[in-house]
């Protein structure tokens, strides 16, 4: 079936970037099948989209804090534009930032390195995955440039608003939005199959399933969750596209359709999606916490079973998004129970991370600060979710700023803090240089404080009954609350500070990439396999005859009787 591996690696090579010297710049960086290059492509695209999707809240929060002003670098915001900005902030941040960075970028970069393989099992399929993703990026950006502008029906795209251009006023934008999201799903299905198959079949000799680093497990479980949940929404997307463009009435109650069907299809995907991005972030945090507390990960198997349990349970909680959509109250009871249940495994996971810290010799480097802030902020996010998961209190809190604050206390730690944890931790491996520690810590503290400055006021606003998705509160006598305006301004100012702080990171990132201190093979003294090769690794990751063999688990820190406090996976004894 397959030619022996040695045939194309046979011609002798001291350095292992052997047969790639002849490739030109374009082939190397845009047409490469190397998992590391594809990971970087996903990473840089995700970072670019983070700027794009991060600019939107600046515009709409300025409108909320100072209604009607001409926003600097944008102009006066119209109601339609406001809706498009809110909608696409959510869409872009989840589908074009969180997923590409946490799953695709680090999945691509880390899986082969951490399991001791030279590449993904299907390198060309991997390239195809990024290319489909790149097309989806073009389509979502193009959706802003068409007549009537971008789609404004919220990231959940509920029909009939999303299905009928007479209501949403964006006949082009809504279809392009749907096409972009569907393309993104296809890219991640292709990528996910590659990830799972690679991790299942291509592990280094000697690597048992309990020797696989936690982040690899988490990315694979996330890929399986994605694969198992996105199908019905793919079908739903086809149906919605037909409603928009062919005149079918799948979701139109006037003609025998059912708008609630879309809500079921959307949230059957939408809630597992939370765990699709959460699990890779917890995996990243697990790696960083063990390395920087110089202690074995507490409860490896428990964390793993917990993650699998969370994944299974996440398919039975979706209707908690629909408590006030008119579902049967008896069904609401069932979904309340499952929703509150799912907080148990997640809480357990957080406690296991804290138990890992206990008694460790903790080093507060930038990645560790990010990992610790993930635990702190995500706990706030988790606990504030319980009043929303309980159907009784949700009736009051639904559609208020409380929901937004809760959501961002979960997704900010996942998407932003999780990404920064991973970026600062694996940067030396990816680029062969160290990031500036002082700049990193300054950036960390400003970001970590500013994010609370944004979302604590939103909790208060929501508890005070402020509706979300309102363009200008002064337009409605009952909603106009001048006494709460100071909180809105506080949130907006904090957001501006948070966004400005990101330029520190960008400077640090690009400056260190070229002028940072050179990194050794293993700057953090980690045990996993990626630290046993060069920084950055050459093509093929290791010389073909020196692919590692694994002798033990991934977190053997502080083993007694050894000279050093870590015992890499590939060292025989």
């Amino acid at each position, binding site marked *: 079936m397959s030619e022996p591996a040695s045939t*194309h690696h046979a011609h002798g090579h001291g350095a292992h970037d052997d047969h790639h010297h002849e490739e030109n710049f374009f082939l190397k960086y845009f047409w490469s099948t190397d998992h590391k290059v594809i990971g970087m492509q996903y990473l840089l695209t995700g970072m670019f989209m983070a700027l794009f999707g991060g600019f939107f809240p600046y515009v709409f929060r300025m409108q909320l804090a100072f209604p009607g002003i001409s926003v600097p670098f944008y102009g006066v915001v119209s109601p339609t534009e406001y809706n498009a900005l809110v909608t696409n902030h959510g869409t872009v941040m989840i589908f074009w930032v969180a997923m590409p960075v946490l799953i695709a970028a680090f999945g691509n970069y880390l899986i082969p390195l951490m399991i001791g393989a030279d*590449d993904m099992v299907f390198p060309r399929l991997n390239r195809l995955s990024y290319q489909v993703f790149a097309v989806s990026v073009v389509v979502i950006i193009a959706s802003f440039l068409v007549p009537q502008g971008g789609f404004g029906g919220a990231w959940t795209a509920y029909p009939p608003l999303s299905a009928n251009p007479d209501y949403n006023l964006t006949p082009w934008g809504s279809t392009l939005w749907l096409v972009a999201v569907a393309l993104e799903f296809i890219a991640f299905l292709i990528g996910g199959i590659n990830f799972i*198959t690679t991790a299942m079949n291509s592990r280094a000799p000697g690597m048992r399933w309990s020797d696989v680093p936690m982040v690899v497990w988490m990315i694979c479980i996330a890929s399986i969750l994605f694969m198992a949940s996105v*199908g*019905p929404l*793919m079908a739903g997307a086809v149906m919605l596209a037909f409603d928009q463009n062919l005149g079918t009435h799948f979701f139109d109650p006037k003609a025998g359709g059912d708008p609630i069907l879309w809500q079921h299809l959307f949230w059957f995907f939408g809630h597992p999606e939370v765990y699709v991005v959460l699990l890779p972030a917890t995996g990243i945090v697990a790696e960083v916490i063990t390395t920087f507390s110089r202690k074995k990960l507490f409860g490896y198997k428990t964390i793993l079973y917990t993650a699998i349990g969370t994944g299974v349970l996440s398919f039975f909680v979706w209707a908690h998004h629909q408590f006030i959509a008119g579902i049967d109250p008896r069904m609401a009871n069932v979904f309340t129970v499952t929703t509150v249940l799912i907080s148990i495994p997640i809480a357990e996971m957080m406690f296991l991370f804290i138990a890992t810290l206990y008694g460790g010799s903790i080093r507060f480097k930038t990645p560790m600060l990010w990992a610790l802030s993930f635990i702190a902020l995500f706990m706030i996010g988790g606990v504030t979710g319980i009043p929303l998961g309980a159907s009784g209190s949700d009736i009051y809190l639904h559609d208020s700023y409380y929901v937004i604050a809760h959501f961002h206390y979960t997704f900010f730690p996942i998407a932003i803090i999780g990404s920064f944890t991973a970026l600062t931790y694996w940067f030396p491996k990816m680029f062969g240089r160290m990031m500036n520690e002082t700049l990193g810590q300054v950036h960390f503290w400003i970001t970590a404080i500013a994010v609370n400055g944004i979302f604590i006021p939103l909790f208060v606003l929501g508890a005070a009954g402020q509706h979300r998705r309102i363009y200008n509160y002064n337009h409605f006598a009952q909603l106009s609350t001048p006494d709460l305006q100071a909180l809105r301004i506080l949130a907006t100012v904090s957001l501006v500070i948070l966004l400005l702080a990101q330029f520190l990171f960008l400077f640090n990132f690009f400056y260190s990439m070229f002028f940072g201190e050179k990194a050794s093979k293993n700057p953090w003294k980690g045990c996993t396999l990626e630290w046993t090769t060069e920084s950055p690794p050459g093509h093929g990751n290791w010389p073909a005859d020196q692919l590692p063999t694994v002798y033990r688990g991934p977190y053997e820190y502080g083993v007694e009787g050894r000279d050093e406090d870590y015992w890499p996976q590939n060292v025989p004894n």
Partner: protein
Amino acid sequence: MHGKPIANTRSATGIPTAKLAVYWLIGSEIVIFGGVLISYLMHRLGHPEWAYDAAHTQTWIGAINTFILLTSSLFAVQAHHFAEKKEGATAARWLYLTALGGGMFLCLKAYEWYGEISHGYTITAAPFWSFYYTAAGIHASHVIAGMIIMLFVAQTAKKNEELHRVENVGLYWHFVDLVWIFLFPLLYIAK
């Protein structure tokens, strides 16, 4: 341009890598069709009056198409049989026959749809017809994809290369066949 990575030659699970990936692909497809079929079923159970529209589907054409697809699956098994015996040229011929089955299925479906559309039963005529064309249309796009892949696989199999692909494309074809086994009773027989 590139050789296969060493990663592709390993098999920690004992299942060949390509086959494993096909299983995952089929898994992801099952949930797509599952979403369509469950949405349809829930509506169908809630709307008994859809039966009046369903009465206009042509069960005989559906039955003949079922027979054609099942027969083509048998041909795919034959192709696998000869691929196992390393007789690539014979395997390729059976693959062409399998793809021909898919082609006949599509021709018959086109004839059927032409008749229905010309009688006014278009995709917008009623919710039943929306589901009918959407579900069968998504299935038909998989038939087309399967045929294209099969022709590619046959090209390499003819030269006795990559014979494991014959089994993998067969697995996919059986899955496409199986989806139809669900669609046929739901769209044609249930009146």
